[in-house]
C-alpha cells in the first residue's frame, strides 16, 4: 500500500486541508470499527506511540495492530500564524505534530514575490527537512498532494516554491495540486498577478492540477441547501436530505456543528474530491485505479494536465417513499455544468480524456451502459473517441450507497484561463502594483512576461485541440506490409 503526503500552504490551503483530515478520519472511523491500524489507514496516517517525546512510529506489520495514536502525514505551512494556531487549538490538534508546522508571523501581503522569493529563500532548508522527515516515515511514498490558493501571497508564492522543491528533490514522486482559482469578483486586487505567476510554476512542475473555483463551490452549496429546508421550520417535506449524506457536510467528524465555519461547506466539497480520488488506492475493488494511473491516462501531452472534476450525487434523499435517484441519473448529472468544480461547461467543449471513479454498490455493467448512453452527447477528440478510464471501488463514501467522481481533461479550462489572462493583462498594461513585486530581491520584470507567455501557450494548446471539435485532423495511413 502506498502512502501520500499532504502539503497545505497558506490560509486557503490549510482550511481545505483541515476539512480533509476531519473527513478522512470520519471515513476511516466509520469503516474501521475495530480500530486496527491497517494499510488503508496508513496511506494518510501514521500510528505512533506517544509515550516517547519524539513519537515512535509503529509500522503496519500484518495489519492487525491496534491504533495507538494517529498522526497525519501532513506538512502545514503558513506565513501568518492565525489559521494554523486555530487548528492546533481545535479538536484536531492531536492529529498534527508540532514538528510538521512551519509558520511565520507577518504573512506575505498578497504578494507572490514575497511568498516565492523571500519566504522561499528563508524557509527552504526548513521546508526541505520537514518534508524529508515525513517522506522517510513512509514505507512507499507515491505522491504529494499540495493544496493552496492562487490568488493570495503565501498560497500561490510559497506554494509554488514548495512545488519546485518537490520536483527537484523527489522527481519520481507524483505531484497533485489542488489549486483554488480566484473568481471574477475577487477581493484581492493583485490576484491576477499572483495567479499567473503561480500558473507558470504549476505548468512546469506539477503532474496534475485540479483547479477549483470558489464561485462554483458556492453554487453547489446553494443547490444542496435548497434541497435541505432549514431545521427550524420543521416541515416534513418530501425530498428532505438524509443527515450527513451531502458532500458539503462534515457531520460525524470531530468538529461539532456549532464550531462549523462559513467556508466549511465549500471546503468539504474540495476535500471530498481528494478522498474520492484516493479511495481506489486505499480500499479494495474489482477495478482498482491507482494515482499513477490517473496521471498516465488523463495527461496526453506534458503541459496539458489541468483536470476538471465533478462529484455526484450531491446528497442522498432520506424519505424512503421516494425511489432512490436512479444510478443513471448520477452519471448524467456528473456532466452537467452545475456539478463541476470550476465555472465551465465541459459538454460544449472537447474531451481529451475522462476518468470515472465509482464507489459503492455499482457493477461494471452499469458503468458500461452509462458510458454507451452518454457517449453520443459528449464530444471526444478523434484519436481518443473511447477515452474513458473506469475505476470501481467497493467501499462507498460515508452516508451514501454509491458515488461518482469524474476527472476530465477537457478543453473548457481554456475559458477560465483566458479570463485570468485578460484580467492580468488589464493590470499589466498599466504596470499597476508592479513595484511591490519588483522590490523583492531576485524578482525580475521578466518573470511577469515569461509567466504570461507560459499561460498563453497553454491556452493556445487547448484552443488548437478544441478547433478539432468538428473537423478532425487527417490521419496518416497505416503501415503497409509489402
Amino acid at each position, binding site marked *: *500500500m*502506498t502512502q501520500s503526503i499532504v502539503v497545505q500552504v497558506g490560509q486557503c490551503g490549510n482550511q481545505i486541508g483541515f476539512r480533509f483530515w476531519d473527513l478522512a478520519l470520519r471515513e476511516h472511523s466509520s469503516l474501521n470499527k475495530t480500530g486496527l491500524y491497517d*494499510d488503508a489507514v496508513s496511506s494518510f496516517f501514521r500510528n505512533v506511540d506517544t509515550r516517547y517525546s519524539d513519537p515512535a512510529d509503529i509500522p503496519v506489520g500484518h495489519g492487525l495492530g491496534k491504533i495507538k495514536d494517529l498522526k497525519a502525514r501532513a506538512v502545514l505551512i503558513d506565513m501568518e500564524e492565525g489559521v494554523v494556531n486555530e487548528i492546533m487549538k481545535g479538536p484536531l490538534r492531536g492529529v498534527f505534530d508540532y514538528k510538521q508546522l512551519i509558520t511565520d508571523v507577518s504573512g506575505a501581503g498578497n504578494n507572490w514575490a514575497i511568498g516565492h522569493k523571500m519566504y522561499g529563500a528563508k524557509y527552504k532548508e526548513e521546508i526541505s527537512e520537514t518534508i524529508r522527515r515525513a517522506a522517510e516515515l513512509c*514505507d*512507499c511514498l*507515491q505522491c504529494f498532494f499540495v493544496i493552496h490558493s492562487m490568488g493570495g501571497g503565501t498560497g500561490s508564492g510559497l506554494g509554488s516554491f514548495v512545488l519546485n522543491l518537490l520536483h527537484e528533490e523527489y522527481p519520481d514522486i507524483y505531484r497533485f495540486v489542488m489549486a483554488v482559482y480566484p473568481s471574477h469578483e475577487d477581493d484581492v486586487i493583485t490576484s491576477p498577478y499572483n495567479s499567473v505567476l503561480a500558473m507558470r510554476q504549476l505548468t512546469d512542475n506539477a503532474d496534475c492540477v485540479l483547479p477549483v473555483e470558489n464561485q462554483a463551490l458556492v453554487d453547489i452549496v446553494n443547490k444542496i441547501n435548497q434541497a435541505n429546508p432549514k431545521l427550524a421550520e420543521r416541515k416534513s417535506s418530501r425530498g428532505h436530505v438524509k443527515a450527513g449524506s451531502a458532500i458539503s457536510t462534515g457531520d460525524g467528524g470531530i468538529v461539532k456543528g456549532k464550531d462549523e465555519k462559513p467556508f466549511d461547506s465549500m471546503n468539504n466539497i474540495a476535500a471530498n474530491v481528494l478522498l474520492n480520488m484516493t479511495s481506489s488506492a486505499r480500499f*479494495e475493488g*474489482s*477495478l*482498482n485505479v*491507482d494515482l*499513477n*494511473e490517473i*496521471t*498516465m*491516462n*488523463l*495527461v*496526453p*501531452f*506534458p503541459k496539458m494536465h489541468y483536470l476538471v472534476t465533478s462529484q455526484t450525487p450531491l446528497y442522498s434523499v432520506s424519505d424512503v417513499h421516494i425511489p432512490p435517484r436512479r444510478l443513471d441519473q448520477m452519471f448524467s448529472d456528473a456532466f452537467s455544468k452545475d456539478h463541476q468544480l470550476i465555472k465551465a461547461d465541459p459538454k460544449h467543449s472537447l474531451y481529451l*480524456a475522462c476518468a470515472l471513479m465509482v464507489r459503492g454498490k455499482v*457493477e*461494471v*455493467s*452499469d458503468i*458500461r451502459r452509462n*458510458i*454507451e448512453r452518454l*457517449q453520443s452527447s459528449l464530444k471526444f477528440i*478523434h*484519436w*481518443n*473517441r*473511447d*477515452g*474513458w*478510464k*473506469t475505476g470501481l471501488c467497493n467501499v462507498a463514501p460515508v452516508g451514501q450507497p454509491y458515488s461518482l467522481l469524474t476527472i476530465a481533461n477537457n478543453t473548457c479550462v481554456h475559458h477560465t484561463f483566458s479570463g485570468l489572462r485578460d484580467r492580468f493583462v488589464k493590470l499589466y498594461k498599466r504596470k499597476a502594483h508592479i513595484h511591490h513585486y519588483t522590490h523583492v530581491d531576485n524578482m525580475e520584470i521578466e518573470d511577469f512576461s515569461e509567466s504570461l507567455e507560459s499561460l498563453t501557450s497553454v491556452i493556445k494548446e487547448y484552443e488548437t485541440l478544441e478547433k478539432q471539435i468538428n473537423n478532425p*485532423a487527417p*490521419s*496518416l495511413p*497505416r*503501415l*503497409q*506490409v509489402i
Partner: protein
Amino acid sequence: MSVVTLQMGQCGNQVGGQFFNMIARDTFDQSLAKCNVPRQTNQQFIDDVCERFFSQEEGSLKARAVMVDMEPKVIAMTTTEAKRSGLFQYNNKQQFCQKCGSGNNWAHGFLVHGSKCSQQVMDLIQKEAEKCDRLEGFFTLMSLAGGTGSGLGAYITQCVRDEFPHSFIMNQVTWPFDTGEVIVQNYNAVLTLSHLYQSSDAILIVENDQEQKICSQLLNIKKISFSDINEVIGHKLASFLQPAKSNNLTSNHLGEMLEHLVPHPEYKLLTMKTIPFMSENNIQYSAYQWPGLVKHLTQMLIANASMEEGIDWGVKLSSTGLAYNKSMANSLFLRGLDVNTVDVSSFKDGRLYPSWLPSEACLASWTNQRTFNKYEKSASLVSNSQTPLISLNHVIDKAWSMFTSRAYVHQYIKHGLAEEDFLDSFACLEQVIKNYKDL
C-alpha cells in the same frame, strides 16, 4: 504432466482464481452419480487433475501457481477466496508483490519493473517448476490493457522462454472492453502482442465484450460483475485444459494440443468457443442432443459467432458472397454422455482450411465420458482462425490514430521506450494481420 500457471496483474489473478475454482469444483465437488463414469475412472481423472494443476503440500491441495502483482490487494483477495472455498489453496510463498503499481504504463511494467523484479519472480517459477515430476509447460494469465499484466507479463514470458527453452508456453490474454477501461489500452495491447509473438507458443484471446454478452444473454445475469465474467472465462479454460483423450488414447497435454493448433510460427492466435451456456435453473429443463450442439458449434465457427445465440445462419461454406471464417487448425473437446457417438465430420470440411493444408489433419478431437461442470453434454472448440482479426484491426487502428498525434507517448518515453519500439510493434502486428487475411 504438470502445468504451472502464472497469474500476472489484477486481471490475471482474478481470472486465475476463478479458473482454479472451476477446476476444483468440477473435479472434487461433483457427486459420482452425476459424473457418468465408474468410480475407478473417476478416481483416475481426479488423480490426473491433481497431477496437472495441484500439488499436495503440508496436508492441503495447493495450486501450481505463481501470483505476481505490483500491489498487494488483489493477491490478498484471491488467496482469501480460495481458502474460503475449502477445495484448494494458494501457496503463500509463491506470491510476489510490490507496493506501487505500474500505472497502466506498459513501459513501466516492462522496462522498470521487469528488470527490477525478474530475478525474484524467476526464482519462484523455478521453485514451482521443480515441484513437478514432469513439467509440461506454462500457462500465463494476463490482461492487455493494464501495466503490470501486459508489460511485466510480456517481460516474464521472455524470461521463461530463455530459462525453459523446451517447455510450452501458452498466454491467455484478456482483451479489454471496446469502449475502454483504460485509455491507453490500445498502446499497451499493441506493444504486448508484438512482444508475446516472439516468445510465446500460443496466444489465447478472450474478449471481455463477448464474455459479458454471454453473461447477459445466455446466463441471464442482471447486474454483471467482473467475477461473473471471470467465471465464464474459467469455465471455458477448464473445458479444454481438463484431461481428455483423443481417438488413439493420447492425453490432451499442453504440448500435444499446441503442436496441433500452432503448426506454423506465424499463426499463433487462438480463440475459444464453448456451448452450451445456460443459467443453473435452465439446465434442468433442457435436453439437447449432440447433433444439435455440433451443428451450432460448426456454424459458430463459420460465421464467427462467439455464442450460441445470434448466429448468422446465412453464412455458408459454399457462398462466395459472404466471406466465412477460415481456420488453420481446430481442436474439439467433447465431454459428457455418449461422446463416442458424435459425428464431427462437419469440422473436417476442406473448405474451412487453406488449400495448402491436408484437411483430415486439421481437426483434433478429444473426448471424456465424464460430464463437465453440471452440463451433461458440453463441447468446446479451440481454433486458430481469423476470428480475432476484427478486434485486432480495430485496436491497431485506434492505437495508430493516437500515435500519429503523439498523444501519451511522452509517458512511455519517460520510462525508456523509444518511438522506434512503437513502430516495430505496429509493423509486427500488421504482418500478423496480413498473414491471417491471406489464409
